[in-house]
Structures are given as structure tokens and as C-alpha cells.
């Protein structure tokens, strides 16, 4: 029997649906399973429909699952909204005191969650524990795994509220006992014991924070915005522990310009925002490109346009990230594919910013910010971080001489300004930062000569444009190429970006199992695109499908413009990610 189940819980925000689901995910992972979650939130603080889906498997999980095998509904609305996503022959769990479900092709287990919590446990808040106990009794995750997680979650409130823990444990016990004694199991979902493994369970934003810390981020400035606020809050707490500083700005313009100021000071600096805030940062991102200041900007994409749907997923800021800012402004754009990437690519993003002295835009999205995955602990290993080397003032460089304490203490007769923007083969110029005898220069958004002095001569502007873009050529040559996934002799190729990689790969796997010859390519770096790998891949297949969670096909547009590719565009733009079934269907239709 397959050791896998996808459980969905639908309810009202604020009644513990999400926290109950998180506990279950952690418990399953501790028990040795791979987990992957997907959740939707209402935009409201309290109330509004929310949903939590957890896929548990003994094999690595690449996507959220096409359908729920088990659906738990806490009210009528949750049933109406979610029953369409319940697999034929799946399991519906509900409390008859909440509502009576319509009949359908599913097995029903009515369980009196409300009564158990209210009358037997005598604490209604334990309703989500009652749910967890039922899941344990019905599908196998041992109660001990769940109680361990609950214990660690409640350890802080143990002193102030000793009965809370007791009541939660009671809820788990009573409910498990109820389902084993009162219900006859009629479904086939049963998770058995598996070998334990050392995995960490965390979401995309938590991995981003770990990555920023590993990259020795010195400075963060930001403004709260869903779904990027977790990153700001996490770094507000952690940065002082490693010697960094944090500033909550008055708006995103201030956040991004504060990052520029800190970066000029030599600090590894970043901000995190979402579409509306990213739009406000445009001008300052252009400045970073012009003045060649390193900066890492996270855009946690949400459904647009305008305020859009703040709590829903979309991949619709790619074009904006590629082109934001007036004029021709080179930048690097990267997109993590999963939680592990949120860590490693974050360190890479800082290193790219420092090496190429430009803004690096990190495009995550709502689904990945909140997606919890179990990841091998070994992924979170120490990673090397690059820092700009700062040129020190020497006799005849910026005209200052040092008194030996790192303090410029005098002026020499002959003045030659520091060539901050000197032409080099790589396009990367020597840089400097104030203090410690650094060579001084003036950073400016005006076109400038090699010394940073304003200069509007045609020859200068032409040469400086080339120099700035040369850095992208250099980066394209130095950065790793994406790895092809699937058949070498594929006739159908899929090109995706961002958080959809696992889903695309699972779709490819299923198609291959059906006999299709399919491969996929998923570049992490979207500017500069790895041209050689992209062209090789496109030329190696007959048909290219570009699945994207946006309306206009932003990657497909780019591939069309760059490589003349006429791809089959598969676009989903309702605010939820693809399923592997969507991908399989696209492959079958393309064939």
C-alpha cells in the first residue's frame, strides 16, 4: 500500500485550522515522513474562509497534490468551497452539529468535534486537537508524535496556564478513542511506520531568513506588507544577534533608499516587499544599477494588479522585476523553486550583488513564503559569502594620505580622484567604502565619468552603458547553468520558473510513466538568462510548454523576444498554484 495521504482542512480563519495543520505537518515529519503544505488565508485578520492542505508521503513530496484524499470541513461553507477538490472515493470528515453534507462519491466520518471539545474536554479551543486525535486514530500518525509537537509549542505557557497542556492532551486522547471505538474504518489510507531521518520542517520565509543570516546580512530596512512581513519580523529579531542592524522604514521608498545608504557604507543590505511596495522601490532600484551599489530586494509576489489579492499566489511580477526602473538598468533577477532554494539562493543573491555591484531581485511568491516542507538538514550547511573588496586611499589615489590609524590626515599636492567606475574587462570596477582610509568618491544617479563626476558626453555615456551591461555578460558566464530534468530524447520540453518546479517535475514524471518523452528546464537566474542552456534545451525538443501562474505569459514573452520561441502557454491565474495534474494535462494536450 502507498504510504501517502493528502489531508485538507477547510474552516474559518481564527478557529485553529492552520495551527492544527502545522502541528500535524511537524508531527508527520518527526515521525519520518516527507511533508509539503499549501494554505490559503483570507485577507481579514479574523474570520473569512481559510484552507490548509498537507501532503504526507514516505517519498520526497514535490507538490501539494492534485486532490485531497481526506477533507475535513468545519462548516458548510468550507464543504461547498472544498468538496470539488476531494478525490473520488476520498474521505469527508465533519461534525454533524455544524452541517449535513450533500451526498457524493466519498466516504463520510461524522465526528462530534464540538461536543468533545466543549463537553468532554471542557475547553472549546481544543477543537483542533480533537481533529488531530481523530486523524491519528484514522490514518496512523502516532499520538506520541503529535503530543511531542504540542508539548514544545505550549512549553512557554506551561507555567502560566498548566491546565492548557493537560486539556490539549485530553482532547487528543478522547478523540482518538472515539474514532477507534465508534467508527468503522472504510477507507484505505493508512500510514505505516517509516525510517526516521534528520529533516528540518520550515516554510519559505523562514528559509529566506536563515539564508540572509548565513549571507551575513548587515542591514535590513523594510515596510510591512503581506506576504513579506515575516521576513522583516524575523530579521528584526535575529540581526542584532549577529551584529546587524534593522530599521522599519516609513514606506518602501525610504526602505529601499536606506538600503542604498547602508550599502554605500559597505554593509550587505537588503529589503523585502511585495508587488505594491516593489513598485515604490523602482526608482531606487534604478539608482542601485546606475551607481553600482549592491542590494538584495525580495519581492514576495502576490496576485495583482494593484492591491490585488494580498494572500493569494501569483507569478506576475517577472516582467516588472526584469524591467523595473526607467532607462536601461542592468540587474540580476533570481527565483527560488522551493524551500531549500530559499536558503541557498538567498546566499547566492547576496554574493551576486556584492560581486557584480548591482541590485539583485529575489522573486519568491505567496505560496512559497507559506509553504512548509521537510528538507534534509544537510541543505542548511555553512555557505561562503563574498564581500566587495574596498580600495584604500593611497598617495595619489584620492589625494588623501593616511596617518597610520586608518584616518586620512592630510592632503597631498597632486590630486587624482579615485577611479571608482574604471573600465575593466569584466565591467566590475574597484569600489570603496567610507572609513578605514577608504578612497573617497561621490555616488550619483547622474551619468558620470570613471571618477563618478557628472558627465553627459556621448562617448562617456556610451562607454558607461556598455560597462554596466558588461557585468551581466560576466555574470552569465560565471553563474551555474540550470540542469535538465527528464528524458534526454524528449520531444516535449517544459520551461518554468520560481515556485512551480516541483509541480512541473511531478507532472513530467507522471507523463513519462505514461510513455511520453518529456523534459523540463527551470532556470534560477532569469536575468541574465543562461542563454546557452536555454537555446540547447529549446533546440533539443519539438514542442515547448511554458506553464506560469500569470495571465500574460511573462516568461513565454521573454523567451519569445530572446529566442524567437513560439511556446505553448499554459497560464493559471486564479490565485492558486498549478497541480501536477494541470501539468500532465498540458503535456497530454501538447502531444
Amino acid at each position, binding site marked *: 500500500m502507498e504510504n501517502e495521504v493528502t489531508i485538507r482542512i477547510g474552516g474559518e480563519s481564527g478557529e485553529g485550522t492552520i495551527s492544527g495543520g502545522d502541528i500535524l505537518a511537524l508531527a508527520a515529519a518527526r515521525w519520518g515522513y516527507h511533508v509539503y503544505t499549501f494554505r490559503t488565508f483570507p485577507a481579514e485578520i479574523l474570520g473569512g474562509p481559510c484552507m490548509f492542505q498537507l501532503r504526507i508521503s514516505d517519498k520526497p513530496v514535490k507538490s501539494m497534490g492534485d486532490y485531497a484524499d481526506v477533507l475535513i470541513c468545519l462548516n458548510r461553507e468550507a464543504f461547498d468551497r472544498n468538496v470539488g477538490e476531494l478525490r473520488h472515493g476520498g474521505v469527508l470528515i465533519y461534525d454533524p452539529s455544524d452541517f449535513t453534507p450533500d451526498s457524493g462519491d466519498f466516504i463520510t466520518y461524522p465526528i462530534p468535534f464540538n461536543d468533545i471539545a466543549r463537553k468532554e474536554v471542557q475547553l472549546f479551543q481544543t477543537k483542533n486537537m480533537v481533529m488531530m486525535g481523530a486523524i491519528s486514530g484514522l490514518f496512523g500518525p502516532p499520538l506520541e508524535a503529535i503530543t511531542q509537537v504540542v508539548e514544545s509549542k505550549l512549553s512557554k505557557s506551561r507555567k502560566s496556564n498548566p491546565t492548557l497542556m493537560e486539556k490539549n492532551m485530553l482532547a487528543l486522547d478522547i478523540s482518538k478513542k472515539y474514532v477507534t471505538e465508534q467508527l468503522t474504518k472504510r477507507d484505505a489510507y493508512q500510514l505505516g511506520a517509516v525510517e526516521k531521518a534528520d529533516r528540518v520542517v520550515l516554510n519559505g520565509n523562514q528559509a529566506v531568513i536563515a539564508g540572509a543570516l548565513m549571507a551575513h546580512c548587515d542591514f535590513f530596512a523594510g515596510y510591512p506588507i503581506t506576504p513579506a512581513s515575516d521576513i522583516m519580523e524575523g530579521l528584526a529579531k535575529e540581526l542584532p544577534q*549577529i551584529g546587524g542592524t534593522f530599521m522599519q522604514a*516609513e514606506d518602501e*521608498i525610504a526602505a529601499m533608499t536606506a538600503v542604498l545608504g547602508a550599502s554605500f557604507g559597505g554593509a550587505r543590505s537588503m529589503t523585502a516587499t511585495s508587488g505594491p511596495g516593489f513598485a515604490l522601490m523602482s526608482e531606487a532600484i534604478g539608482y542601485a544599477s546606475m551607481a553600482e551599489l549592491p542590494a538584495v530586494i525580495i519581492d514576495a509576489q502576490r496576485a495583482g494588479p494593484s492591491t490585488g489579492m494580498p494572500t493569494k499566489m501569483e507569478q506576475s511580477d517577472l516582467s516588472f522585476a526584469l524591467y523595473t526602473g526607467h532607462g536601461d538598468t542592468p540587474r540580476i533577477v533570481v527565483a527560488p523553486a522551493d524551500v531549500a532554494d530559499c536558503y541557498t539562493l538567498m546566499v547566492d543573491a547576496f554574493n551576486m550583488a556584492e560581486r557584480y555591484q548591482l541590485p539583485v531581485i529575489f522573486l519568491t511568491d505567496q505560496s512559497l513564503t507559506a509553504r512548509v516542507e521537510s528538507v534534509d538538514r544537510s541543505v542548511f550547511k555553512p555557505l561562503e559569502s563574498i564581500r566587495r573588496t574596498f580600495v584604500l586611499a593611497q598617495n595619489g589615489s584620492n589625494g588623501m594620505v593616511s596617518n597610520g590609524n586608518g584616518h586620512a590626515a592630510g592632503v597631498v599636492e597632486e590630486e587624482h580622484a579615485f577611479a571608482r567606475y574604471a573600465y575593466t574587462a569584466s565591467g566590475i570596477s574597484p569600489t570603496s567604502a567610507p572609513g578605514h582610509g577608504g578612497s573617497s568618491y561621490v555616488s550619483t544617479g547622474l551619468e558620470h565619468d570613471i571618477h563618478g563626476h557628472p558627465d553627459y558626453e556621448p562617448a562617456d555615456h556610451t562607454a558607461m552603458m556598455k560597462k554596466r551591461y558588461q557585468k551581466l555578460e560576466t555574470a552569465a558566464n560565471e553563474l551555474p547553468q540550470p540542469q535538465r530534468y527528464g528524458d534526454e530524447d524528449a520531444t516535449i520540453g517544459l520551461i518554468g520558473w520560481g515556485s512551480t518546479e516541483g509541480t512541473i517535475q511531478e507532472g513530467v514524471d507522471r507523463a513519462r510513466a505514461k510513455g511520453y518523452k518529456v523534459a523540463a528546464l527551470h532556470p534560477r537566474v532569469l536575468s541574465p538568462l543562461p542563454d546557452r542552456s536555454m537555446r540547447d534545451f529549446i533546440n533539443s525538443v519539438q514542442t515547448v510548454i511554458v506553464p506560469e501562474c500569470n495571465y500574460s505569459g511573462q516568461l513565454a514573452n521573454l523567451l519569445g523576444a530572446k529566442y524567437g520561441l513560439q511556446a505553448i502557454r499554459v497560464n493559471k491565474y486564479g490565485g492558486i498554484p498549478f497541480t501536477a495534474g494541470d501539468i500532465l494535462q498540458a503535456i497530454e494536450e501538447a502531444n
Partner: protein
Amino acid sequence: MSQTTLTLAPKDYKSEVKPTWCPGCGDFGVLNAIYNSLSVLKLPPDETVVVSGIGCSSRLPHFVQTFGFHSLHGRALPVAQGMKMARPDLTVLAVGGDGDMFSIGAGHLIHAALRNIDITVVVMDNETYGLTKGQTSPTSPTGHVTKSTPYGLLASQFNPIATALSLNVSFVARGFSSRPKELAALIEQGIQHKGFSFIHVLSPCPTFYNTMDTWKTTVTPMPVEHDTRNRFKAMELSMETAKPFVGLFYRDERTTMDEAAHKMTQQSSAFDINKYMARYK
């Protein structure tokens, strides 16, 4: 005093870039006052940064032989604050005009005041938009006729000093570009003041709105008896717009955000990913 190579004289802060301002521009006086104050304080050029936004006066960093950051229109304050938060060891000055500080970047002033980060801002106010050729500014008087207000300005006139005082800025002063010695002394005090220092400078534009003659007659020295700890009295003096007082209005030393933030890092240690990830099981 004769100059040696070990003395940082005012001229040693002059860069090789020549000012782009019109003859008679008040900003020359401000620039000289900045050279003088940097020299008096002997600020190491490699540890000093002059930040600006966009406008005639915002060209100033290019003319100073220290580090400089000529940023975006209105953004000198957040750039300077980010820099000081990340590098509290530096001396950070922010300079700009009335358009930068009171129009496009006015919002930042409120938060710079609340944070009290140790930077010094010098606002060169000419009551007009010079770089874009003479449109109305927040500090232009009501009724002011310009190309963008052909029927006269319909809005009220902004009061920079009263605003700064209302925001409880910890150092509030006004200078006049034609009194460079007094101005240099104010800038010097502003730099030495621990906290956010706001120095409003009347700096006329001879090309688009020449207020030189008016200010020469109206500018009034701060009453000698004024107690710079008295914010109520300072507020009263700031309301005298017909005879603008020059000098120090208000001063109050209190904790700065950069200092407080760096105190928090005193127990910091090198990041250890293995230790950090122990929280995730």
C-alpha cells in the same frame, strides 16, 4: 595660521569639481560654511559622507572632498539614516533644498525626527524650484506668481522651523547664506549634537526668485535671552515669519536610534547555521 599637510584647512575639503551654481547663488555661502565647519572639527574626509537628493543645492556633495552620495529627489534623509544605522562610526550630513525636504521628501522628515538618528541636515531654502526653472515651492509665499502658478499661489506657506519644532527634532536652527560665519558655527554645533540636527538655511536664488535684498533687511538675530531648552518659546519665535530669526531655536540631547540599535548588537556573535537551525526539527 599657516597650513601644513597635517592640517585639514577649509580648502582641503574642496573637490576638483567646480560648482555649477549661478553667480550670486546663496548655496556658495553654504558650501563655504560647510568647508569651514568640517575644517574646524577636523573631520577625516574618509569618515565623512555628504548625502543629498536632487536639486541645485543637492549638487553640493560633488564639490566636497569627502565621500558623497548624490541620491534621488527627496530621498537624502532615508539614505543618510540607513547609512548611519549601518555605519554609526561615520559623520553623516544630509543637504538639499526646500523641494527635496519639504515637498517630495517631506514625509521622511517626520520619521527622521522620531528616530533621532545622529545625522545633520542642512536645508538650503530659496523658496523656489531653481533646477526646473522657477516653479512654486512649499516655502513660496501665498499669491506667489510663477510659471506653474500664473494666477498666484493658492496654497499656504510652509514653516520649516515650526514644523521641526512640532516634530520635537532634537536640534533646530536657522542660518542665512550671507552670514557664513554664523552658519558655519551652527553646522558645527549641529554635527557635534548627538541626534537629528535640522538646520534651515535661507539661501536665495538670484535667477528665479531673488529674496536676497528682502532677507538682508528682515533676518533678525536670535534674542540673546532665548533659552534653547524652551520649546514653547522656540515655537513662538518660529512664528515670526516676517522677521525670520537666525540662530539656535531648540536643542535637546536624548537617545539616538543608531546608538540604541548598536547597543543591542553588543552581545552579538558570529552566525552559526547549525546552531540556528536547531530550532527547526
